[in-house]
């Protein structure tokens, strides 16, 4: 029983998100039954996948107890790169996809170098690099445009019966990146490092490499998100990623990932991302003015952050409370 409650406590974030998603989808379907068609499901999936990927990337970094404010710029950068250089031929598509993923790893590595080896506080470090990456996207592509071949676009955004390819992409990212990482030692190290950096060092964990790897994984997920956005919009836009920085944090926090590190899984952020993405759609379907969207989005965030804070208020001693001080 105690074990069960423990388990439930762990999964309370994902559970709440799952309930939220189901509720929102029901409201959606009432107002617009066609959303349950193949095309509708693909629409929902496409709308959520980018944020889900960004949320996964953010989660990896959060689990080490740091944070990444450059995720949005990384997404924009890869998006602009892909839309600018992806030709029509299969070889060039493959090359650009590979190069995009490498760019994601590279910008992640830069963050990791600055934070883990340069010992600059994560907040400032990624705040600064986000400007550098945004500047590079703007220089690469001063205005939205470029092109993405239909074949690539359809590959990522189409659907096969009830199965949207975008959901497959997310599944693939989870199967090929998340699961192998978190089933391996690296994942264990990431969690351990976020849980207690001093213990991690004393346990012989290569702490700097782990910090670096976390940022590189975040960059990789951001790159996939950027590629998906390129396919979805068939173009590049230097500001397209901006919304994902804060929203990825929101999705992760909604999904029960602790900002203090050491805790989190992939289901929570994914469900959190789906909830956040669909809710805006539903708001406009239900007829709530767009002006309310920022308000509601900010409100949801404040509510979740506040609730997490209230949980902390139960801390018994002032030392644990103040010991949790901000990054």
């Amino acid at each position, binding site marked *: 029983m105690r074990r069960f409650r423990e388990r439930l406590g762990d999964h309370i974030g994902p559970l709440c998100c799952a309930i939220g998603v189901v509720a929102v989808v029901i409201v959606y379907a009432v107002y617009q039954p066609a959303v349950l068609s193949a095309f509708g499901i693909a629409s929902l999936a496409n709308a959520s996948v980018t944020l889900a990927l960004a949320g996964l990337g953010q989660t990896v970094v959060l689990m080490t107890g740091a944070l990444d404010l450059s995720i949005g710029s990384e997404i924009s950068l890869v998006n602009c790169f892909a839309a600018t250089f992806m030709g029509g031929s299969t070889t060039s598509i493959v090359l650009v996809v590979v190069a995009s993923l490498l760019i994601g790893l590279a910008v992640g590595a830069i963050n990791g170098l600055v934070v883990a080896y340069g010992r600059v506080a994560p907040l400032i470090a990624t705040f600064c690099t986000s400007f550098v990456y945004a500047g590079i996207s703007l220089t690469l592509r001063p205005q939205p445009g470029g092109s993405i071949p239909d074949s690539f676009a359809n590959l990522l955004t189409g659907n096969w019966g009830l199965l949207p390819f975008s959901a497959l992409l997310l599944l693939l990212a989870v199967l090929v990146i998340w699961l192998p990482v978190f089933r391996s*030692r690296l994942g264990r190290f990431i969690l351990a490092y976020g849980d207690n950096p001093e213990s991690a060092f004393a346990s012989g964990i290569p702490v700097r490499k782990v910090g670096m790897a976390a940022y590189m994984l975040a960059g990789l997920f951001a790159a996939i998100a950027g590629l998906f956005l390129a396919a979805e919009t068939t173009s590049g836009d230097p500001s397209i990623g901006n919304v994902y920085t804060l929203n990825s944090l929101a999705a992760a926090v909604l999904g029960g990932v602790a900002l203090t590190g050491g805790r989190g899984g992939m289901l929570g952020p994914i469900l959190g991302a789906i909830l956040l993405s669909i809710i805006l759609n539903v708001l406009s379907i239900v007829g709530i003015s767009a002006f309310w969207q920022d308000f509601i989005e900010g409100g949801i965030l404040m509510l979740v952050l506040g609730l997490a804070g209230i949980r902390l208020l139960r801390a018994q001693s002032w030392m644990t409370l103040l010991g949790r001080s901000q990054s």
Partner: protein
Amino acid sequence: MPDAVLRAEGLTKRYGGITALEDVSLSLAAGEVLALLGANGAGKSTLVKMLSGNVTPDSGSIAIGGAERHLTSPRVAFEAGVATVHQELSLFGSLTVAQNILIGREALGRLGHIKEETSLRRATALLAEIGVPDIAADARLGTLSLAQRQLVEIAKAISFDPRVLILDEPTSALGLTDVHRLLSVVRGLRAKGRAIIFISHRMEEIETIADSVTILRSGRKVGAFPRQSFTRDRALELMLGETQQQLHAVPPPPPAVQTTPPILQVADLRLDGRLNGVSFDLRPGEVLGLAGLEGQGQKDMLFALFGLFRRGLRGDVIIRGQARRASRPLQAIAAGLAFIPDDRKNMGGFMFLPIAHNIAVTILDRLRRFLFLNARRETAIVAELIQRLAIKCASADAPLGSLSGGNQQKVIAAKWLAFERDIYLFCDPTRGVDAGARETIYATIRDLAAAGKGIILYSTDMVEFPILCSRVLVFRGGKIAGSVSGAEVSEESILALSFQDTGAVAA
């Protein structure tokens, strides 16, 4: 000695002005248990941290199995065959017991994935081997008690199957039965030819398990001898050195006059599991000691009085006849309490702010003239305190962090002398403090008592009680196990009360 598994030569480590360890050499053979003895701050943990790769020595060398090794990180030490149980545990609350034990050495499948089942089996076997099958290998570490965690930490070190195993105060959190289990594991390892360094403040354990004893004092090795020539008296003399004589030379203050009404009354104070019904009185002019083994509730008692627990505290705290149980430090301060913490870095002072600001922080309201601080008065007060406590500093504007540990501790005391309170709570005020500074702090405590303040002193250093306290409460399991007062206050009487049920270990 060709069969030395571990040989350290001339290890030295300095932290700023403090010499933690100076020119210490050590050699350890297979199948040998070496007990490391020394007072608090003698440098035992520093030595351990060097042998485990957590700290690099300023000078000196370490050889393992005959080959010189540069233990630049814990990983290198593990690879060299040295596993360590640190004084502060190196575990992860959100991982399971098995994941903790095997971190970095998990059983991997062909795809590089962790085989959790295998790990679980290995961890379970290991726990059974050290005689603690009651700890479930798949339990979350965060749900275990401190003693259980200590055992997990030991299992983790043993799982390396190390040539050298270092145990830094592994028994401080353990009860009698667990200590027995641990000691038999150590014996088993010795039988397998492992070399073991064992640190403990409990003489009985040393007598039971050690093959040889090395004694540190103030960072220096002051003695090493085989178990046969070991006696408690000799060890104590070497550990405490002349300081002890010097300290004993000062007469203890007179016991408090029992007729004055108590300034502080504590009645049945409880804090879930950590304090189990503590009651006592404190009278003006009295220095009341809180003694006992580490972690028996003495510190929690001080924290509770000073309002550091926000919730969960039950029972009464009565100050000058008024109920003043605090759930915030501000309330405690208003009720007339001052608190001098042991953890200088995290709880004591503002390391990067000037000394003057550190001292004046408690009296900001009193220094206010209109909107502004009365700078002249502040300077005068600070200067007076610096002089009174003989704080060695370049100027009152120097950052606190630039001072030596002892002087930092004096500054922390100074800020509560600036803001005169009725009751002073001293939490191990001499931890890591050199002999001279100790004297100043002792004198300060005596002066306060003479001025009619009530003082509660917690110390990990047993010798301080006889020279400072008129009465000592000995804590065990969050309760007062007994008390001694006046001339009865001695290390022996306190130890006797502390060990009442663990004293049998020696047998």
